């Protein structure tokens, strides 16, 4: 098998990414128009009811171009996006770019730390529970299953109650800096660690059965060292591939965690935007997530090549 030249691979990747972004924007546009709910009425009818005049309603509708035919709206929407203009959020009345730059850092910090925690927890549990003993293995695997099945909001409230409220180790809500990130990140990390752990465990046990492991031991390496220094590297491959997916899943879970811990973040912004049928903001955030997803996958590919030099590209998805 021959690998196509580098520029072609880059080209294909860029084209693929562009295609994905376009599709995401288009799907978002039509999805939001398909679902019932008039953004204008949401906007003006906030709270338990309000009494805007018909002129107000018409003016608002016009202001967002919602009085145009659908195809015109779509063309304008795409046209704006092409020029890099994400528009103004209808619900927050702030430019989408500003909303995202405001909300993104918090989300990125949280995502990064959650991923890191998840990896650390998964690796620790795995290394401690893949020894020879069947009991240890069953315990580790059981722990992971339980962890993977914990709903975020519940775990979040329990962690808050125990560590912030009872023990006072961490701030209750929205604390600044690292210390405030710990509990929300843990809330996200524990179920993810359970999932990653499951996958890693299977891969590690498979790797431990490989002859090269016996081979290393026949050279005088200890069982523990083989596990941590040889087999683990192999076991990292599957969860590494999953990290791209995990980042996407984290965005969804962050909606809940951000609400429980009263944190800023694009997850919650997305939820509110969908509820308010705020097309510019939903589009902006979807494009953002798609971009992050594309970038993370690129990073995963690169990392993959570091861990497993056999392949230049692990999977195309």
């Amino acid at each position, binding site marked *: 098998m021959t690998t196509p030249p580098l520029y072609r691979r880059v080209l294909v990747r860029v084209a693929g990414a562009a295609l994905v972004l376009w*599709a995401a924007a288009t799907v978002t546009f039509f*999805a939001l128009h398909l679902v019932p709910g008039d953004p204008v009425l949401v906007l003006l009818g906030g709270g338990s009811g309000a009494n805007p005049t018909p002129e107000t309603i018409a003016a608002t509708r016009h202001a967002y171009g919602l009085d145009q035919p659908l195809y015109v709206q779509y063309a304008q929407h795409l046209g704006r996006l092409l020029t890099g203009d994400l528009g103004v959020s209808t619900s927050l009345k702030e430019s989408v770019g500003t909303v995202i730059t405001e909300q993104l850092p918090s989300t990125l910090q949280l995502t990064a730390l959650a991923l890191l925690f998840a990896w650390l927890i998964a690796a620790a549990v795995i290394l401690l529970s893949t020894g020879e003993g069947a009991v240890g293995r069953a315990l580790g695997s059981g722990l992971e*299953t339980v962890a993977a099945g914990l*709903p975020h909001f*519940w775990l979040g409230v329990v962690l808050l109650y125990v560590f912030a409220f009872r023990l006072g180790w961490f701030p209750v809500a929205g604390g600044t800096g690292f210390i405030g990130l710990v509990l929300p990140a843990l809330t996200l990390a524990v179920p993810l660690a359970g999932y990653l752990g499951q996958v890693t465990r299977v891969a590690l046990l498979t790797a431990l059965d490989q002859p090269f492991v016996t081979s290393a031991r026949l050279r005088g390496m200890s069982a523990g060292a083989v596990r941590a220094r040889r087999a683990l590297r192999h076991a990292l491959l599957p969860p590494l591939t999953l990290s791209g997916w995990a980042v996407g899943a984290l965005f969804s879970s962050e909606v809940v965690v951000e609400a429980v811990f009263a944190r800023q973040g694009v997850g919650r912004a997305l939820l509110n935007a969908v509820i308010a049928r705020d097309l510019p903001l939903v589009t902006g955030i979807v494009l953002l997530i798609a971009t992050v997803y594309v970038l993370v996958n690129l990073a995963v590919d690169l990392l993959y090549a570091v861990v497993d030099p056999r392949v230049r590209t692990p999977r195309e998805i």
Partner: protein
Amino acid sequence: MTALTTSLAPARTRSRPRPGLFAAGLFLTLVVVAALVPGLLTSYAPDGIKPAEFFRSPSAEHWFGTDQNGRDVYTRVVYGAGQSLLIGLGATAISLGLGILLGLSAALGGRRVDFAVGRVLEVLFAFPGLLLALLFIAVFGTGAVTAAIAVGIGEAAGYARLIRSQATTVVRSGYVEAARGLGHSPARVVRRTVLPNVLRPLAALATLGIGQSVVWASSLSFLGLGAQPPAAEWGAMLADGRTFLQYAWWTSFFPGLFIVLTTLSTTVLGRRLQAWLDVRSS
């Protein structure tokens, strides 16, 4: 080896007594009984509201205590099994079905279809599952059925990806080639050889998915978009009970426990099922 094939690697089998397996089986049997004939397991009504008896702690009379409406939590957990299983099984069936459709057509349909499906999956992945669920719910309203469908759609991409890679391996396998070499028609090869072999290793994964779907749906309930009150659904009970955690931990603890136990049991059984399928063919 890609992630997918590894995660689909046959579960290890050992022939030792399995108390865990027995417990899991017993628990799931109970849950199924609860789902089918809840009246058998409790004498209270799930929506039997008694305001005066709110937040009684667990006792002989109310095993799991009572909730903010004075309803028996145990009874609601029992009656909730039906809805929760509906969500768990329904969502898993939907995501598997969609996954099979997408994954198989990618693996079998030639390079162009594969590319197209690849892009579709990428868009699906880039689209947060929650957003999909929200949009779906906005169109079709809330409730256990829509929750199941919404969760199912949200999870389909993951399955599709797995099935696609699994199917790619199967299609290239010696036995598919053997079937082709015999001169069987493509339709027959797909139906009798490819599909069953693609699905076999998904057994364990799908069972894991059942519990995960219930948890997913409970997040929808947390956002107020899950099963409709007064339906007893574990996720919804868990979500509603969270605010009373300090004063009445039991209202959310028991539904949560049941979600976790169900996940655990289905996983144990799923692994066993997969091991059994692998052994049967060994």
